[in-house]
């Protein structure tokens, strides 16, 4: 029976993209228990709803997180549109899906780079982020911004993508795909990567369901749930959508699920571009939400299912806007995955849940 020590992990740690504190109860290199603590980037953004009217709050919602920025603005706009009964034109829905899938590609490639950095493979990290620049270039050409896009408003989108730009998107994605396949081979077939990730941080399917996990974190443990299969918005027009699921439940499976999701997103974007309808890109929204009206909406962000709730009170300021982000749901799963692992694997496990603590704390 060894002595138990408590090692504080974070909030400042080279491997963490965002501040998270864990108290690791360690006995002889094995972690017995991990107690999370968040609250380092709590900015009280949900309270800003009281001083920004529902059109201006889109810009606040975007800035909750840099990686999931577009997802939050789209989810917020969809929730308020549902609250006020606004019908968004079809072309705007297709455009939103294209930007959202591009956002997913950029987020997953960013994550792959961070995961490589977590187990020390820095050159792979640099290559991933170099590829991600191509997607950011697409964003800059079509929206005018690299990370914070500001193209969504309640009622539709603000900018249109013309035919030349759609062709440009397709060309860039094809060029990206060839290099991306090489990087995936480095991730999935490399023995040193496999040594660090196979069998590490295993979560069974029953545990995944019991802990209500979401996103690729859960889909790697054979939980077949993806909000995109519910067909909200233009996702309902997809000819065929199957969530990518793996039954291994360890870090390697989570990595594999995310790499395959990038390829799936490229296919979705191609289909959306092919079938894009003509028409207006926004409707004018006037008036205010009714007093006491409530609405809820779910969106599949790169990290999982994100739930939005809006409540109106008759004025142009919303009464309450709530975003429940996927990482806050996965914190319980992370705590369970960390129990019983080696101290050296803590980095990899935390990175594989794709923590986005800014989203969690708003």
């Amino acid at each position, binding site marked *: 029976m060894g002595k138990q020590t408590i090692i504080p992990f974070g909030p400042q740690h080279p491997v963490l993209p965002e501040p998270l504190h864990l108290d690791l109860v360690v006995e002889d290199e094995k972690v017995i228990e991990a107690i999370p603590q968040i*609250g380092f980037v709590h900015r009280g953004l949900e309270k800003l709803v009281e001083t920004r009217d529902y059109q201006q709050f889109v810009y606040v919602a975007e800035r909750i997180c840099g990686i999931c920025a577009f997802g939050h603005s789209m989810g917020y706009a969809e929730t308020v549109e549902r609250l006020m009964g606004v019908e968004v034109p079809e072309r705007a829905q297709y455009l939103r899906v294209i930007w959202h899938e591009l956002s997913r590609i950029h987020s997953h490639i960013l994550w792959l780079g961070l995961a490589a950095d977590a187990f020390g493979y820095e050159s792979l990290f640099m290559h991933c982020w170099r590829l991600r620049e191509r997607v950011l270039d697409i964003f800059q050409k079509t929206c005018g911004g690299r990370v914070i896009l500001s193209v969504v408003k309640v009622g539709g989108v603000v900018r249109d993508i013309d035919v030349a730009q759609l062709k440009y998107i397709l060309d860039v994605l094809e060029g990206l795909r060839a290099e991306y396949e090489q990087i995936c081979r480095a991730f999935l077939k490399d023995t040193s990567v496999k040594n660090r990730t196979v069998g590490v941080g295993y979560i069974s399917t029953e545990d995944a369901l019991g802990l209500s996990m979401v996103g690729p974190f859960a889909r790697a443990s054979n939980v077949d749930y993806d909000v995109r299969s519910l067909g909200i918005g233009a996702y309902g027009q997809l000819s065929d959508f199957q969530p990518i699921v793996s039954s291994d439940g360890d870090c390697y499976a989570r990595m594999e699920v995310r790499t395959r999701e990038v390829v799936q997103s490229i296919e979705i974007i191609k289909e959306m571009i092919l079938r894009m309808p003509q028409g207006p890109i926004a409707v004018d929204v006037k008036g205010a939400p009714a007093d006491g009206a409530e609405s809820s909406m*779910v969106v599949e962000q790169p990290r999982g299912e994100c*739930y939005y709730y809006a409540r109106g009170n*008759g*004025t142009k*300021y919303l009464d309450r806007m709530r975003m429940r982000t996927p990482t806050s749901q996965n914190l319980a799963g992370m705590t369970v995955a960390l129990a019983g692992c080696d101290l050296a694997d803590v980095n990899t496990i935390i990175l594989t849940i794709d923590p986005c603590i800014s989203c*969690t704390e708003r």
Partner: protein
Amino acid sequence: MTFQSQFVPLSIEELPALAVRCKDDGWRFVQMLAVAVEDGVNLVYSFMKDGVLVNHEIASVKPEDHVPSITDTFLAAFVFENEAHDLFGVQIDNIAIDFGGHFYAVSQTSPMTVISPAQKEAREKARKLAAAKAAKEAKAAKEGGEAKAQDGEDAELEAKLAAMDPEKAAKVRAAMAAKAAKAEGKEA
């Protein structure tokens, strides 16, 4: 699968039974949130199965009420229950991982229940507007007929003016008066 969402009411006593029932039937726990309303805090527990999202809403929880925790059935709820306690002052008993108020170390207790002046002002204005509109409509219903149509228009205009800047509203009123005077001058 399509997506549907609904809101159903719930009471504090029914909450533990609901959690157990949802777990047994295979419902997924989505989230738990708190909303500050006039007379307390509303708690919304959401569960989802096969594309149907059901939001169970407990209305007007007072600061003295004790709400049982659902972390014994759904461990993932500990994040939201700690947050509700820190930001809204809701008392929840037996949270599995309880931070005792230090989850988000904020400097003010239950900051989300404090209403900012801009929000308060906007709510008062909206309430006055709604009351004025209702009164006008009641009057019109009594007088009935043609007068009702005119009053309806007037009420809308009044509502619009009341919502604008007082300076701007005065200008609009002056312009309308000038227009009416001109129309009368033409007819005469």
